């Protein structure tokens, strides 16, 4: 028997790595009349559904994907976030 688990993997540039996107956003803030916003880092968020026997098994798959595919350890850090089955945005079927 198996069940579906939904996760997000958040990938962010590592400390010290140049983040030109973050800087570009920061530079555009004055044009928007926004102040007091800083330390902007732009990364990736990947949401996915895993079919597995249990939550722990599912998480193992996600951790592996995150480490090997979704992030590059030289430049990026990642963090896995369980979303539960309820997430509606993602329940569509993609063939």
């Amino acid at each position, binding site marked *: 028997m198996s069940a579906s688990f939904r996760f997000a993997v958040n990938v962010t540039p590592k400390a010290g790595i140049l983040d030109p996107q973050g800087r*570009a*956003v920061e*530079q*555009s803030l004055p044009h*928007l009349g926004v102040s007091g916003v800083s330390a902007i880092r*732009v990364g990736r968020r990947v949401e996915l559904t895993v079919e597995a026997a249990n939550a722990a098994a599912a998480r193992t798959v996600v951790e592996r994907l995150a480490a090997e595919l979704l992030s590059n350890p030289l430049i990026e850090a990642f963090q896995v976030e369980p979303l539960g089955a309820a997430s509606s945005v993602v329940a*569509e079927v993609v*063939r």
Partner: protein
Amino acid sequence: MTAVAPVGPPARELAPLHHRLGVTDVELEAIGAKLGRPPNDLELAIFSVMWSEHCSYKSSRPLLRTLPTGGADVVAGPGENAGVIAIGDGLAVAFKIESHNHPSAVEPYQGAATGVGGILRDIFTMGARPIAVLDALRFGDPADARTRHLLRGIVAGVGGYGNCVGVPTVGGELVFDPSYTGNPLVNVMAIGLLPAGRLTLAQAPGPGNLAILFGSTTGRDGIGGASVLASATFGEDDPSKRPTVQVGDPFAEKLLIEASLALIEARLVEGLQDLGAGGISCATSETADRAGTGILVDLDAIPCREPGMAPFEVMISESQERMLAIVRPEHEAAVRAICGRWNLPVATIGRVTADGDITIIRGGLDADGRPSAGSVELARIPAAALTSEAIVHDRVATPPARRRAAPAPGVPYEPNDLLPERGMDPGAILLGLIGSPNLASRRFVFEQYDSTVQVNTVVGPGHGAAVLRVKGTSKALVATTDGNQAVGAIDPWLGAALSVAEATRNVSITGARPLGVTNCLNYADPTRPEAFWQLKEGVRGLADACRALDIPVTGGNVSLYNESPAGAIAPTPEIGVVGLLDDIARLVGPEFVADGDTIILVGETTPGLAGSAYAELAGVAPEDGPPGLDLAREAAVQRFVREAIGRGLVASAQDVSAGGLAVALAEGAIWGDHGARVRLLVNGTPAVDLFGENPSRLVLTARPGDAPALLDLAHQHGLPAGEIGSVGGDRLVIELGGRGAIGDAEGRGTLTSDALDVTLTDVRHAWEHGLERALGEDRPRAGGIA
């Protein structure tokens, strides 16, 4: 098998469904007449898309019939996905231009990206491998934040798609004009090359053959792109669930190109059609109608991206990166194998039939390709009713009340004291012009494009027409796009004719022979008599110019309703031309080549500054008009320059266009890194001689020893021509002599300077940095990352 079933519950709104779908009462009646009964809702939805302006050309079709389309080498002309012309060596070139104006106004990146995707499909559908893209872009004021947002997104979108699929973007246009505020124009031209015998047509011959859909799956995106369906609430669905924006997937397109060309190469398809506006409805009805057949479509067989899509959604979805192939049953396995190799979903969605109808069922086909027992017929429409026999409207054309006629060529000019150049330093005007957003270097834009992939680019974006060598031959293709909204706004006939003259001239001055014209007719709301008059005049100008220059129109596209709350666009027929240079070793460029070369001006300077870049910068006298165009003269100029280049008499060739003679000389100097010293005899006003844009003029340079022969040849062609100076030094100096320059003007106490004198460094600086400055891209910029 049961009878036609109603689709969806009855509408709740008061307005009848056909109105909400943008179908008029007259059109509804015509639909009923075609069907012999009232349409059901699904049929009505299909008609609404297929009878939209975009798919049916219901306003423009009678006009397009007046265009000259014949030519000895034309292999495919209007009516096919792209024009095709034989170029010898067993090869043919396919090319077409298309607009994606409205989608780009809504979502600039994706709108432009999917525009590139769509025009590329038109090319490889014909069996041609796409080898180049040109993008003609038009915007409002570059200082405007909205313009900058649109430009940034559109340029990134063109690049994002073209770069990824690996087709170089080698040319195009970038024009700023207030009339495009709120309604930018994104016209993209694509060029492909095919072995002459491999031409593939978009047709569905052979009842019993399979209709196979391959490429991306069908989603809810883009529903409404071809009609007002998006804004109409249709049936019970929540329309907000249907994104009107289509997202392009250039990676999928790249796979689609390779798979489609592999299918054609293996001779596995009887016909091939890309899916664009109108989606499956359009692809099935057009291919069937062309072959005089019908197609039976099983909705259940169509791979959908989302569950629960309504039949109308599936039938009119404009999901990108899809193709329809017509395949003999015995080839099905081989077709599936090729699609599988490229990892593309593939599905047999129906059969070609002999009944001439597009029939849509649900419930599957049996082994013989007939509807299975228990299947339901949802719609049945004669294919011809959707395409070749679609409704045509007889629109009313009325010229605007006050309209100034263009002066005829050769009309004597009266010097006009109201012209604002009096008292200005012409050198400063030149720097202003050449650094202005419409004339400065476009490098900021085209650097975002891959212009060298495929290793054919001999001349990429930046300096005149693009030149692509044809591998395995000594030949080259030369391509350009041109439009002229500034004159078109004053005289739409002249604007169109000038655009054809300039585009073909830009090809001829490389030494190449223009092969054919493709055109994108960007106009306003055709139900307004004045806008329809502009369209009618534009098509007349296009036809007249093509006839005079003896060049066929091989295809194009019509984009109407280009209006925004800020107003209608200036009429903008965008002209794309492809030419053939037989010997690439004979290619001539616009840049000055060597110190000491003689500079020759061919053609005659005539008055009329309205519509010029100078007029935009300096203003123009109210009674002035645009310059005249003598099409016979234009044809002679182009014949002459091709012959001169063919004889090896020309070192560099540039035409006089935007910014006039001074800008043409400055460009030759900047690009060649050689200055020049020129002397002009001014008869009327210096502004006309320096900055006037009257057509049919060339700036040629030649080795001093070749100059006499070149002048002789010009005279043999009946063309005025004379030496005006020589190449050399690190300045551009244009001395002004004659009555108009000093005598009369000084006599009247004005301060006209008697020479234009700028350093190459200054003029290059102005040219190189003007665009980025105008767009604010020389500073940290505003804008998100979305």
